[in-house]
């Protein structure tokens, strides 16, 4: 919304020097079922969790990765952090190919790219005190022992934990969800990374404390100029923290552009349904019927051509034959045949 730099969203744009993260035709296919089952009756199949995605993240940009469960958003986040290796395609970070990183280069990458976990109750080892949990990344980065305490306290202050000393000797189960998620964020931020993946960081938290964690995320990101991916199924949350949104459906990107525009006027039929489905916390709000067919996305057996066509109210013959290529509409990229004719 307050984006002054023009949004370069195409992977082909010559903006590589400004891009921190480049994703080129990345695929992640999982084999499910046993090989034996495949022999007997085709029980084994391939799930295309991510099936050919392209995008770039510019330095300092915050981008929402939006979609339903199973759309590949979490897998994408894991791939960007080299927590798994893609089946195909290339992921570049700071002009390096992630696939080539190992040893010292990998350690350096781990310092720069961090993850904020979905479930703060599980992201911290229950046997570790908060001090020990926060010490782990800086100990790995070989920070001298004498400097560690200051770093720990500073990171905790950064996420607005008041009186940080009181938490040091406590164990995770002695903290509330909101406090834990701040600790998880402090841990991610302690080495001053340049890139953060936040995987539904507030979905396990109660409504009354969510806002606090979101505000910290938003403010810290702006203050440190972090490049961030915010993974969520909730457009209202994404809108709160991201200027740009990438909408995914069944392993592919369907729409990519400024969040405000997507909320105001979604272009892709799937995004339209997604925006219309978000409930509004006001009783006077009128809701239109959903522009989508019944059924659910089936990752094991996606339709030919456009993977959304079986639920799409506007699908025609071409959608079954041809996979839609990205089409530029204003500042947005839309993967739909309505816009490329």
């Amino acid at each position, binding site marked *: 919304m307050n984006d002054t730099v023009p949004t370069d969203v195409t992977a082909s744009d010559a903006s590589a020097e400004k891009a921190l993260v480049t994703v080129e035709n990345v695929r992640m296919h999982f084999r499910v079922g046993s090989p034996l089952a495949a022999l007997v009756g085709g029980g084994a199949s391939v799930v295309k969790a991510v099936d050919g995605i392209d995008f770039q993240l510019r330095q300092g940009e915050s981008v929402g990765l939006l979609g339903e469960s199973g759309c590949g958003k979490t897998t994408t986040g894991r791939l960007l952090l080299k927590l798994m290796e893609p089946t195909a395609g290339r992921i570049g970070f700071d002009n390096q190919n992630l696939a080539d990183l190992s040893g010292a280069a990998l350690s350096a990458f*781990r310092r720069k790219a961090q993850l904020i976990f*979905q479930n703060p109750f599980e992201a911290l*080892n229950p046997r570790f005190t908060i001090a*020990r949990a926060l010490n782990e*990344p800086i100990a790995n980065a070989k920070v001298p022992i004498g400097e560690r305490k200051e770093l720990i306290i500073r990171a905790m202050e950064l996420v607005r934990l008041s009186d940080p000393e009181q938490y040091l000797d406590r164990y995770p189960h002695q903290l509330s969800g909101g406090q834990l998620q701040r600790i998880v964020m402090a*841990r*991610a931020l302690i080495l001053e990374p340049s890139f953060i993946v936040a995987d539904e960081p507030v979905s396990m938290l109660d409504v009354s404390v969510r806002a606090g964690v979101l505000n910290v995320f938003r403010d810290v990101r702006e203050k440190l100029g972090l490049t961030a991916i915010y993974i969520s199924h909730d457009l209202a949350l994404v809108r709160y923290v991201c200027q740009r949104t990438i909408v995914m459906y069944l392993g592919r990107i369907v729409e990519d552009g400024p969040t405000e525009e997507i909320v105001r006027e979604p272009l892709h039929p799937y995004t339209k349904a997604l925006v219309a489905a978000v409930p509004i916390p006001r009783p006077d709000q009128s809701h239109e019927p959903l522009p989508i067919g019944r059924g659910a996305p089936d990752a094991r057996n996606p339709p030919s051509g456009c993977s959304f066509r079986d639920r799409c109210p506007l699908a025609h013959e071409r959608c079954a034959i041809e996979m839609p290529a990205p089409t530029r509409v204003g500042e947005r990229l839309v993967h739909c045949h309505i816009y490329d004719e």
Partner: protein
Amino acid sequence: MHESLDTQIESRSLIKQFFDSLHLPTGDPFAVAGLIIYAAFVAVALSADVIATHDPTEILYTPAYELAADRSPGQEGYILGTTSLGRDIFSQLVYGSRSALLIGLTAAVMVALIGTLVGLLAGYFGGLIDTILMRLADVAFGIPFLPFVIVLAAFLEPSIWNVVLAMALVLWRDTGRVIRAQVLTLRTRAYVEAARVSGSSDLKIVFTHIAPNVLPLSFLYGTIAIGWAILTEASISFLGFGDPETISWGYMLQDAYASQALSQRAYYWFVPPGLCIILVVVAGFFISRGYEEILFPKLKD
């Protein structure tokens, strides 16, 4: 505060951590009884020199230089009587606890250590390491245990360490499999992934984040192994493949059997070592049961 934080982070007593992570099952009365029995046996074994009234292998004579054989308990001051070769049964029993615990504990440590390592590596790294280790476990599962120990005794010198070696070679399989299964679920925990993101090496993750969670499990298998080792040593000795130089409860039983103690109704000779074996094995069972209730609380209902 600076110091306290650093010490707290860096050097929290390893020993204390170890005992904390063992979670001794002190809540269960049976387990406590088992722990007390173990403690008693350990005390006896450690102070065997003080408690024993005679050298267990010494052939005893009366002041008139007659063989002091087949004395019944209490007779001439022999607490549990003597064997038909004139050796003091009480002293043999006391020294027997020493070899029993030596075998039991070393076997337990070996089984727990090897099994835990195998389980951790196979479970965490998966892939080829997992395949190789688990095929080895399959082979170990195929080996019949007692005959294996006998064959080993035939190849090597008869020694109580054969039992320990055999257990180390074969019995890690159960511990390894169970711990591997546990590690498979532990390694998917979010905090393990968090450790990876924070730059911890695989080995560091295995030993600081995963191992402490499986330690009670290895301890459970360790306590089971103690009973197994003592029982195996007794069987081997009883079958006559044991170490003739070392006094053990199994050796005592074999000695009593060969001397036809049963037909002579010399119960004082073979009942005490038999009872000791039962006590130690049962104590091990109680402790492991206590552990199971901690590890798998559903057993309580």
